[in-house]
């Protein structure tokens, strides 16, 4: 599986260059210069800055800063608003990941199976990939509109008085629905290409061994899809954590105070709107550690060779 290849230890530790490489000195440095300078200025500098400011308390009027040690971090742990966001983020990430993965898998298995219209289905199910998250959020605003939103009316039929932006649960529900809608295509594309790369001989052998389609799926197809699914799991967690920003922002309608928000959204709200630079930086560092932990986890799993191909 090419997607996980990138992360395989062999690729990272072994063989950095071609054996018959050029030995010119100045050219590679020149070639690397743009990439390295952009990374240093716009990646390492801000990242280091975030780590540093997380240990300082900034004067709100811009008169210097004082070293406060771990205070920004302990303040986070004591803040009920932060902990509520953390809790929401975990639940939100779990639900969005599980729903979009399982629905996409179902659709991919069906799209792989049908003969007629396979191409049309593929196009129809993947184009939403290109829709920007905030636009998806605005579509959500229309669907759940208080006076005439079609989905709000639909839920009203069952006696559910849906109030987007007012009831905490309803807003969270809308955020999940829109986020899953937006993420389905990516998972669909990966699952479908994973399914299509299963050799015909394997499928035929499975057909002889196992008569039941469901049994075949769980015994043969699903294990073969495991590397794809694992790779997608990481991608989806990252998506739910970071890329849903536009969806959260539009659905919260600029009133984050009483609405659910993810941790990334809180970094922005506290730092940019609330002007709490130290606290926001501490939040950034917490997220950095989280992402690093995810990556280490991913490496370990790849080392254990989840992939069978």
């Amino acid at each position: 599986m090419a997607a996980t290849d990138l992360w395989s230890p062999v690729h990272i530790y072994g063989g950095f260059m071609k054996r018959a490489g050029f030995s010119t000195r100045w050219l590679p440095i020149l070639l690397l210069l743009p990439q390295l300078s952009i990374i240093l200025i716009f990646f390492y500098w801000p990242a280091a800055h975030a780590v540093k400011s997380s240990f300082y308390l900034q004067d709100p009027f811009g008169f210097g800063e004082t070293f406060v040690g771990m205070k920004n971090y302990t303040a986070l742990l004591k803040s009920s608003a932060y902990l509520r966001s953390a809790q929401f983020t975990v639940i939100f990430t779990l639900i969005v990941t599980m729903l979009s993965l399982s629905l996409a898998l179902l659709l991919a298995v069906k799209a792989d199976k049908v003969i007629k219209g396979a191409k049309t289905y593929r196009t129809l199910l993947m184009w939403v990939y290109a829709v920007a998250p905030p636009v998806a959020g605005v579509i959500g605003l229309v669907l759940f509109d208080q006076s005439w939103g079609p989905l709000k009316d639909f839920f009203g039929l069952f006696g559910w008085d849906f109030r987007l932006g007012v009831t905490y649960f309803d807003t969270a529900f809308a955020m999940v629905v829109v986020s899953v809608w937006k993420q389905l295509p990516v998972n669909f594309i990966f699952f479908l290409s994973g399914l299509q790369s299963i050799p015909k001989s394997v499928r035929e052998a499975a057909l002889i061994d196992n008569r039941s389609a469901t049994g075949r799926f769980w015994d043969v197809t699903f294990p073969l899809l495991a590397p794809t699914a694992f790779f997608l799991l990481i991608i989806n967690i990252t998506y739910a954590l970071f890329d849903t920003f536009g969806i959260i922002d539009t659905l919260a309608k600029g009133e984050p105070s009483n609405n659910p928000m993810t941790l990334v959204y809180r970094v922005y709200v506290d730092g940019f709107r609330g002007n709490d630079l130290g606290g926001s930086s501490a939040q950034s560092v917490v997220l950095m550690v989280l992402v690093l932990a995810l990556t280490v986890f991913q490496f370990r799993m790849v080392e254990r060779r989840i992939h069978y191909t």
Partner: protein
Amino acid sequence: MKPVKFTAIVDHLILITGSLVMILPVVMLLQMASTTDLETMRNGPGLVFGDQIPVNFHKAMFEASGFSGKNTGLNMLYNSMILGFGFAIGKIVIGMMAAYAIVYFRLRFATFAFWIIFTTLLLPLEVRILPSYEIVQKLGMLNTYQGLIIPLIASATATFFFRQFFRSVPEELIEAARIDGAGPIKFFVDILVPLSRTMIAAMFIIMFVYGWNQYLWPTMITTEEGMFTLVRGIKQITQSLEGTNLPEYGKSNILQIIAILPPVLIVIFFQSWFVKGLTDSDK
């Protein structure tokens, strides 16, 4: 003729339902864009299409919604194009150059350079958004195209993609090129770049869509209405819908459709390249 199997019908029903869920919300936007604002305000989305698309289109493209009068749809479209193309081209050019240096040269600090570049894959811009903003501000790049594009390029996705691809290029090619007396620049321009054409196309589609759809960074970096992109402008549009006596639904819906159309068309038309690029790379 074989009888139609029951399971096949179920399969198609599931796929049709999935497709409808994907399409209907956007059809709804289009329907709302085809009626008058008053009609939308009273009844919301309906089943019948109206004839107001040209009127709303004209409003969206040529009438500004802000105070400065600069953020017309046309201007935002222009800015989105610059961001999409600038980001995609910048990332591909810089990524190819760096990948070429890492794969094809004997460099003493290659390992070190590799790790420095590799680390950027781990931390998305959202995590370091505030310090990045401060630095762009210090450099005087707020409300400029450079400030919009360059910090977004500071992650090495394209570099890794091309590194992976270059490593799969047969070793014999470079040996043959050296025997023929081709230098490193000639080898790159005449052999490696033409060989990477499909990969470049795939990367371009993915990067264009990614750049075009940026929201958080443009929201922070551009405060002048003349610099707004379509996706960034959406925030202002939704805010203007709240509280106004007669919100301009038609205009807003047209702008949203224009914001999704270019990336969607590219993805649909170049589907096979796009799918290959996406599933071959990491993201």
